[in-house]
């Protein structure tokens, strides 16, 4: 049986605020982020939380998606799927899936660049797996900062403190050298 958790991510603006333990509210230890369970928090409740904890909604920068893909080896993630705002043609879909399957980071990034600058098509979501979670699971991060966790055994707080989440929320730049150089050695 698969368990799916959908979370809204927010930036926490104030460091001093202590988050009282509320159902469906999970802070990240590492990145000044707050995750709200989408099944519990609806629009009017969100408003009050937003002012109470000084939350800022955010949109994932396209550049941060690129960083995640570029450094996926160092970040210990495995990118499974990339979805774009406009649907891809079947041919393009095949091409992208092939590059992802072969872990060809260079070709994937080139494909994204082509979509962005020639087809005016931005990344909408990225789906990936963590190397440290065994078994089948999916993590999906969308451009409007909605995190969908599937089958991750409720390790929400641990996942929120990982580097890939830090990258996508614009809190962390990987200190590694680019993957191209890493391949050479």
């Amino acid at each position, binding site marked *: 049986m698969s368990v799916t958790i959908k979370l809204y991510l927010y*930036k926490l*603006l104030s460091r001093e605020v202590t988050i009282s333990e509320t159902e469906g509210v999970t802070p990240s230890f590492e990145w000044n982020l707050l995750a709200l369970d989408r099944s519990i928090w609806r*629009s009017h409740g*969100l*408003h009050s939380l*937003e002012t109470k904890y*000084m*939350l*800022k*909604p*955010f*949109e994932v*920068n*396209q*550049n*941060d998606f690129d*960083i995640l893909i570029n450094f996926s080896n160092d970040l210990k993630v495995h990118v499974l799927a990339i979805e774009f*705002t*406009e649907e891809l043609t079947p041919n393009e879909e095949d091409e992208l899936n092939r590059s992802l399957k072969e872990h060809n980071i260079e070709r994937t990034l080139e494909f994204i660049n082509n979509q*962005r600058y020639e087809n*005016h098509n*931005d990344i*909408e979501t990225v789906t990936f797996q963590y190397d440290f979670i065994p078994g089948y699971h999916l993590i999906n991060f969308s451009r*409007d900062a909605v995190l969908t966790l599937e089958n991750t055994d409720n390790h929400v707080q641990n996942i929120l403190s990982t580097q890939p989440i830090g*990258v996508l929320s*614009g*809190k*962390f*730049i990987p200190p590694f050298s680019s993957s191209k150089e890493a391949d050479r050695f």
Partner: protein
Amino acid sequence: MERGFVLRELFKQAITLVIFYFVLKHVWGTEQWFNDKVKELLFFLSIGIIYFIASLAPVIVSRPVVITISQVNKRFNQSSTTFSIKGRSRTQDHERTVSLQVTVLRKQSIWGVICCKILKHYQPKIAIEPATPGIIIQKDIAGTRSDITETSTGLILDISSYLSSIINNSPSGIFSKVIDYKISDQPLNPVTDETIHIIPNLMCGGRKAPYWLSSIIRYDNSNCGHVVHFKRG
């Protein structure tokens, strides 16, 4: 440089006039035309003093730093950005990234030290926020830049230490720094068609900087507003 030259010339002339006065007094001290000559010499001396004060005036009057700000769309190089959301598709990231440039003109002034004290005490910051609700501004690049902090709708740029180091380290010159930010929509406050201005304001301690601060730091934001044409649907 030029001021030193003027001062030296004035000083030389003053000495010449004084020596000339004593020589005349010694030889023709009792004659009437000598008294007339003394009046003439005094006139030249006082003109010299006036010149001296006038040469100091710009240093006294001018403010040590002048801040000007400009904001242009990074992709199209314009002072306005069109941001449209239609279903899932929206104006692309790189087409709604705005470059904000802070230009600091450092001028020679005797108020530099006082200005540094004021900067240290009042910590002026530039708040970059939309004037009306509907959009938010977020950092374009990740990382922990210590001079930028985020607010619920925008960014705050701390310029106090930047200005202090300019004043301390350089008597004159032009400095500039650029910050890129991205315009996003406000999910909990959706608006349809609106024109929204982003106007950077000089702030002190969470509110608009007091008026008197402009007498020591000139802050010009009259032509720097960025216009966002927001469209939904």
